[in-house]
């Protein structure tokens, strides 16, 4: 069965510093990987996805993620954090040929001024 792990409940970073939010996955076949962000009392907003091709994926708001097949990871990164990036971040995986979209437990990002 497909699964996703986000090992950090919370990540703290100072504004202007680079940030990384970690995600590892487990699937039997090939994965489709996604990152979403959630602001208070809102639904999830799509940030970026990996389907195939280049391992470095660029998305919205300056975020990017690197797909690493050998480490089964898909970490979210941003070179310079903003206070407005503070939110909940979710990693998700869908295994090719399967219908379910499964999410990790979420990571709270807190960017301090």
């Amino acid at each position: 069965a497909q699964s996703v792990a986000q090992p950090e409940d919370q990540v703290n970073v100072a504004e202007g510093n680079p940030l990384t939010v970690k995600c590892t996955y487990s699937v039997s076949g090939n994965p489709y990987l996604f990152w979403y962000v959630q602001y208070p009392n809102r639904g999830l907003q799509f940030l970026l996805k990996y389907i195939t091709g280049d391992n470095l994926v660029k998305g919205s708001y300056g975020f990017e993620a690197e797909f690493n097949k050998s480490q089964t990871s898909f970490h979210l990164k941003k070179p310079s954090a903003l206070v407005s990036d503070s939110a909940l971040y979710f990693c998700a995986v869908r295994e090719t040929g399967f219908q379910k979209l499964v999410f990790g437990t979420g990571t709270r990002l807190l960017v301090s001024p």
Partner: protein
Amino acid sequence: EADIYQTPRYLVIGTGKKITLECSQTMGHDKMYWYQQDPGMELHLIHYSYGVNSTEKGDLSSESTVSRIRTEHFPLTLESARPSHTSQYLCASSERDNTEAFFGQGTRLTVV
């Protein structure tokens, strides 16, 4: 503009009542999902559908039921609400396996 809509946004209801949470999308997506989100933020898949007249249970056992009679509509029903059903419910849809899912704003349900 294509979008996904959930109603109501907030609902407070008494124990034992029957409720239906509505979810509609205008994008013509075949795949639709219901997630239950804990106060502590974790998302649990409770139901999904990959087309009209197809529904499957998700990873988290739920006393709710769903139906998919029309492509655009995926309502979730609780026959008898209990305080343990208090949660946020998020509906989503996607076009294909390799496309992102679009989420509604969610319904925050409180059962008293």
